[in-house]
């Protein structure tokens, strides 16, 4: 403390001015929520509660990592919530069929996981190819596939719920509920997906091209970047991320229905935007998206701890935070 006092004023002021505050807005928001939460309830900062929050943010967070690529490249994917529901339904049905054939539960789970990854990749590729080859707006195409995936899962479930075979469920449950080295498995998966995503976005040609395309597609094309291929790949990444989220989601409830994953697409987009990624593309980063996803589930958690605001107002608070986050970041891109 005394050291800071003795240091010449202008130096730390200059250093303070050089901190890119606008870029750090998401992090400051997170700290703000943590402070509020810890003041409201002594158990808020407990390991159990924080892991609980992180675990719950993993679904949206993993999907949002994929969404970051799509949005930075200047696209949007509205179909992720329905895609998750459809993939979950299809995965459970496949595993149930295999269970009827006397297969070992572990093999069944592995086959299910493999199938869902391939299916997610294909679903994303379908979105991407229709958008780039068909030259149709991403908003329109994914609005269409949103409806298609949603009705497919309802059809597969025959209007009801698809439940996972009990023997398989017993083997699969730990994937969501167990911990490794004291940290819940979904948190591990979220962290690994985020780190891989960050490396891909910030340290590879692909990531640079994604940002260039979102910034100005024509410039990228004239600089001999394969714009269509890169844009399609962003949707493939999105599809695989949805599949990973589904792999964590299925063991949690062991069922899927027509109402699985409703509004996940909006939560994922919200996480990306809170994290400082420009909705019009060209700029953004993965760590912001991770912070955004955690913030969204923290809001619900904080509201649960207090009686001052009804938890039914969760959505309203989330909405305000989204708008505030974008408001605080608006200066960066200029007028």
């Amino acid at each position, binding site marked *: 403390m005394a050291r800071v006092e003795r240091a010449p004023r202008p130096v730390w002021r200059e250093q303070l001015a050089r901190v890119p505050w606008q870029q750090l807005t998401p992090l400051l928001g997170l700290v703000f929520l943590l402070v509020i939460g810890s003041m409201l309830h002594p158990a808020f900062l407990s390991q159990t509660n924080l892991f609980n929050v992180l675990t719950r943010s993993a679904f949206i967070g993993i999907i949002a990592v994929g969404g970051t690529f799509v949005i930075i490249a200047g696209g949007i994917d509205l179909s992720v919530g329905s895609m998750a529901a459809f993939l979950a339904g299809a995965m459970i049905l496949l595993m149930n069929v295999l269970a009827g054939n006397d297969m070992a539960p572990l093999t069944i789970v592995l086959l299910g996981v493999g199938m869902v990854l391939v299916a997610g990749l294909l679903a994303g590729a379908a979105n991407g190819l229709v958008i780039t080859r068909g030259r149709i707006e991403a908003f329109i195409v994914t609005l269409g596939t949103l409806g298609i995936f949603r009705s497919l899962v309802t059809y597969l479930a025959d209007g009801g719920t698809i439940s996972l075979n009990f023997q398989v469920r017993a083997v699969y449950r730990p994937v969501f509920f167990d911990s490794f080295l004291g940290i819940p498995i979904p948190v591990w998966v979220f962290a690994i997906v985020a780190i891989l995503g960050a*490396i891909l976005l910030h340290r590879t040609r692909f990531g*640079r091209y994604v940002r*260039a395309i979102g910034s100005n597609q024509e410039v990228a094309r004239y600089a*001999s*970047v394969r714009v269509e291929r890169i844009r399609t790949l962003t949707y493939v990444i999105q599809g695989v991320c949805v599949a990973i989220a589904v792999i964590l989601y299925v063991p949690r409830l062991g069922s899927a229905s027509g109402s699985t994953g409703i509004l996940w697409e909006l939560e994922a987009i919200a996480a990306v935007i809170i994290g400082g990624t420009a909705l019009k593309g*060209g700029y953004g980063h993965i760590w912001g998206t991770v912070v955004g996803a955690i913030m969204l589930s923290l809001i619900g958690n904080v509201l649960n701890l207090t009686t001052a605001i009804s938890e039914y107002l969760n959505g309203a608070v989330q909405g305000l935070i989204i708008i505030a986050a974008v408001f605080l970041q608006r200066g960066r891109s200029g007028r």
Partner: protein
Amino acid sequence: MKPNERSREGRDVTDADTMTPQPPTSSQALLQGRGLSMAFGPVEVLHAVDIDVIPGEVHAVLGENGAGKSTLLKLIGGFHAPTAGQIVMAGTPRTFRDSIEAEAAGIVMIHQELSLVPDLTVEENVFLGHEHHRFGFVDTRAQRRATRELLATLKTSIDVTRRVRQLSVSQAQMVEIAKAVSRDVRVLCMDEPTDVLTGRETEVLFELVRRLTADGVAILYVSHKLDEIKTIADRVTILRDGDKVGTFDIADLTPADMARRMVGRDVSDMYPERQSVADDASVALSLEGVTVPGYAEDVTLSLRRGEVLGVAGLVGAGRTELFEGVIGLRPKQGEVHKDGRAVRWRHPEDAKRDGVAYLTEDRKGKGLLLTKGLRENLTLAALERFARPFTDVRKERAALTDAVREFDVRVARLDVPAGALSGGNQQKLVLARIMLTDPDVVILDEPTRGIDVGTKRQIYFYVAELVAKGTAVVLISSELQELLGLAHRVVVMQDGTVTGIVTGDDINEETIMAYATGLRRDTVSTPNRLEVVDGAR
């Protein structure tokens, strides 16, 4: 490109060497700028410049890129507030808070970058913000009539109900001018208005300028084209590096005088000495019956190592589209051979792999990521060299440092966005980008559009350096002087077809224009005839 090619030693050509600048004519001035300075952050780009504009005159503002011309215009037009100095309008000091206040005072600006709304119609654009009303609703019929009349005075027939997006660039420019004239204008500021206009449209513009000045309107006219200024201006204020060199009567200056004062030294040696193409130089690129649907038809031509092949033609002749088709940016039919090998380029990346690079004519729209840094822009086309598999930022920075040195990019800091560079420096950056892919065939599309004389000269010498190393260069240009000064042969296109290929002493303005306008037309069908190269020139 050596930094010294436009050296600062040349500055010893002083302004007072042959004549004294005119004294200010404050008594009759309609608009005066007194000691106008402008700083962006710590960098002052305009240093205490005085200017006075008399009613009914065309006052040209001349200077290299970055000399402060556009900044001066923006101060007068109310887009920036000067950091020092004053604007005096008809004897009264004025402070404009924004361009709307300046417009209300009668100062209207035509922008270098078009400021029309692409999805509104011509008529809606002309009256945007100044709509005619009738019973509280916009009176579309009156607006359309007025717009038609305005365009008629500009001798331009554009359907006023069309959306601006559907217009050609030159048509949009005419709409921009119509919009400016529709305001009650006393001082009309034009920033490089003829850059995108054809010869005929330029004539119409000049006629309009004369009509406006006859009505007492003053025109502030920024242009790089010296002959144009000689034709249209009454007086000229020359700026260099943010300083005023002087204000002169146009009658007292030849274009060479203007260029000398602007650059600060003699520019008679604009073009490097032309080396002849070696007799045994192999054919680097050849097109046989190439058709780009809608733009170019059945084009056959070839290009040898160490040769500069000029491509001339009027706006809309299909030159850009032809070569965009060749490198795979547009669908095409016909055969392309690179180094004697048949190639099928479906994407610029294919052409890049075969050593062909294309410099776009649209620097801002297709050339640069304006909000991204210089480094990202430089390495975009050759990123595979800097990423195996992870991008090596240090290596990229080193490449940027090298490029800034080699191409003499004038920039105070390397961490600014590309949009912050002046036009000439932006062009050098895009040029550096395409050269980073190590091409041996370089297609330059209007490489000197909208850039200053000094940078132009640097680019010309760079082209000469390239061909000396055996690179083959296609030079698409609307500036005939450039083709005359650099090209070994000139292909002339008109309306999508090649009307002639001129060589040797035939490379002159009359011949090229005759082919470009369709007055002359050769039947160019046998490829053999096309490969005759006159290296003697």
